[in-house]
């Protein structure tokens, strides 16, 4: 997605005819027309900056014509105590905080847009087998593909995910860790549309209920691997009961601050005990739709984003916990910055694969991404703690932040990518 967004951006400027862009996809993109009426499991939440990008490259209309789900408010609360934060766009004329869009809608829209752009060539299937430099450090790169082609380029952008072949072939190390958690995703249906993004932090990890089109919502539930296996295998009604507990039950912290393991199927009083200042409760779930899936969660950051005539964007450069819904938005921001840096370079006659161009991209994105990653990691660790004093402080903090509209406005600005 991020790579295709970059390619579309590079094809959408009055300066684009100076570039010939090749997009290497390892597999042929499946024909996604007509779009199935059934909701897809894999969704992302897209912030305003990413929507601006889609509009600028001419793909947004295609997405809207398929289906997108705007949401206008967000509630973040936790499993103990009374703390919660409610966000909306604070009277901004544009009330939308973001959109939840199925991955395949985005992929399809970008792919269709790329086919329309004259200076972009889709190469599929096309996988890199070998990357070779010339004798001179400024020489172009030669890519040999598994399909037997030889491609020469002045800039290779690796947008090939967290196992990036491009990153490995230029031996850029990356650090990070695997969280001892898996993300369970499912689609559920309500009686009426959901327009709020809900996220509740439990001791075992957050559960998010993200609005989708129609009456659907997407669940992303972070769980320890063993629990994730159990939840994956539950029949639908048992699964819905667990989700209901997770979203509604008031947990008793106990004297020592340890929480009961309430995912073991014992009868648990599902009190609809919303904390005192919780404005709303998440909407009731009527039924589960389709299959569930789980994916491993990790944090990863490449030590460099650039090398000789190589740039990394998106998950190839950084992977984060999904709890903040920011991961792919960071990648789209990378694409925006790299596009700006490239076009600034074209305007002053630079070689766009040169060190000054790539260093400028790295300087702008690395710090911003690291700050966001540190923030997300901090939130995760804060809410992972079951220790009573911390949970109490957390709740007070949540409530205080909820009362402070200027701080909430700033949080919304950051989440929307505008800072």
């Amino acid at each position: 997605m991020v790579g295709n967004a970059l390619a579309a951006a590079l094809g959408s400027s009055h300066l684009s005819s100076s570039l010939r862009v090749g997009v290497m996809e390892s597999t042929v993109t499946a024909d996604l027309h007509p779009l199935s009426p059934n909701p897809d499991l894999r969704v992302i939440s897209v912030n305003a900056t990413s929507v601006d990008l889609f509009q600028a490259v001419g793909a947004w209309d295609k997405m809207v014509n398929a289906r997108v789900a705007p949401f206008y408010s967000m509630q973040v609360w936790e499993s103990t105590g009374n703390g919660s934060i409610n966000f909306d766009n604070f009277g901004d004329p544009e009330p939308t905080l973001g959109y939840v869009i199925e991955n395949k809608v985005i992929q399809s829209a970008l792919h269709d847009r790329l086919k329309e752009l004259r200076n972009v060539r889709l190469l599929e299937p096309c996988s890199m087998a070998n990357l070779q430099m010339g004798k001179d450090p400024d020489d172009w790169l030669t890519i040999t593909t598994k399909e037997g082609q030889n491609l020469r380029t002045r800039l290779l952008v690796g947008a090939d995910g967290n196992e990036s072949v491009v990153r490995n072939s230029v031996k850029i190390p990356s650090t990070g860790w695997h969280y001892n958690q898996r993300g369970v995703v499912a689609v559920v249906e309500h009686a009426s549309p959901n327009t709020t993004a809900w996220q509740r932090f439990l001791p075992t990890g957050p559960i998010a209920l993200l609005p989708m089109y129609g009456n659907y919502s997407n669940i992303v539930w972070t769980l320890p691997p063993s629990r994730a296996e159990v939840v994956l295998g539950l029949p639908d009604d048992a699964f819905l009961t667990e989700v209901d507990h997770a979203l509604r039950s008031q947990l008793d912290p106990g004297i020592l601050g340890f929480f009961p393991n309430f995912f073991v199927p014992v009868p648990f009083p599902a009190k609809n005990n919303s904390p005192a200042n919780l404005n709303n409760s998440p909407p009731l779930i009527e039924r589960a739709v389709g299959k569930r899936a789980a994916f491993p969660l990790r944090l990863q950051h490449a030590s460099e984003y650039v090398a000789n005539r190589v740039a990394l964007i998106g998950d190839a450069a950084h992977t984060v916990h999904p709890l903040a819904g920011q991961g792919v938005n960071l990648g789209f921001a990378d694409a925006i910055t790299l596009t700006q840096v490239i076009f600034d370079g074209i305007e002053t006659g630079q070689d766009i694969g040169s060190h000054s161009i790539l260093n400028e991209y790295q300087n702008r994105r690395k710090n911003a991404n690291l700050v966001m990653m540190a923030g997300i990691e901090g939130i995760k660790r804060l809410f992972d703690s079951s220790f009573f004093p911390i949970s109490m402080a957390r709740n007070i903090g949540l409530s205080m932040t909820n009362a402070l509209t200027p701080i909430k406005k700033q949080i919304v600005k950051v989440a929307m990518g505008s800072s």
Partner: protein
Amino acid sequence: SKSKQTSTNMMNLTYRARSLNHKQTFIRRIPRIQNRCDRSYATEISSVTASEIAKFGELAQRWWDPQGPLRTLHHINPTRISYVKRNMVSDQESITPLKGKRMLDIGCGAGVLSEPLARLGANVVGVDAAATSIAAAISHSQIDPLLKDNLSYRCSTAEDLVKEGEQFDAVCALEVIEHVADPAAFLASCSALVKPGGHLFISTIDKTPQSFLTVIVGAEYFLNLLDRGTHDWNKFIGPQDITTILNGIGGMKVHNVTGLAYNPLTEKCSEAPHVGMNYIMTIQKDNTS
């Protein structure tokens, strides 16, 4: 691990990573070219001194090193290009705004200015007195296919070009005049090389106490931005002196003088009011000259 798997699965991986933050000196192979022009200096007086030729000639291999002794030139380059483009043509939207213009980059070194001008559509002739610099320029220009048709280099001097009767739509003498022995003669040659109605761009460093402190002491001694001896403060010259010389030559009108502010910490350069340090100026030759 999975990444190791990927590595072993790839055939004949020969790429060795060069991290951009890793300070490395690299040796560029310079093809030998006939040093005809070096012989010509033994017999002719030219505005370029032999020591300056030698000084920059030795650096031939390091011109394009992004961490090399000429890295500040690369940092200020986009700002210089942007200035020249804006002051030369009115259509700023085109990808090749300089198309149709024949330009001279005098004192071109290894082509740091010539290449971007050529990419912007100009027909560029790069001229330098140091044969090794020209060789480095030719070698580097062969990397980019975009430069094949409208970029050429010659080992020569401004005076020799005048003798040949050459004239250009624009002459760029950027970061050169502070290295010549006779600035007045050099400016006379540059003016002669401009077609009537054409432009002359000069950038250099003003001769002021502040330029001594920042560009000599600061850059060469404290910050190590430039090698010691890169500049001689006595050869710095201010825009008012250049204007006086041009008035003496006649037919050359100074349109503007703009300062170039360079921040060594961010390595960014921007146009700013002239405050007695680096500056660039636009001069136009009368149509009737």
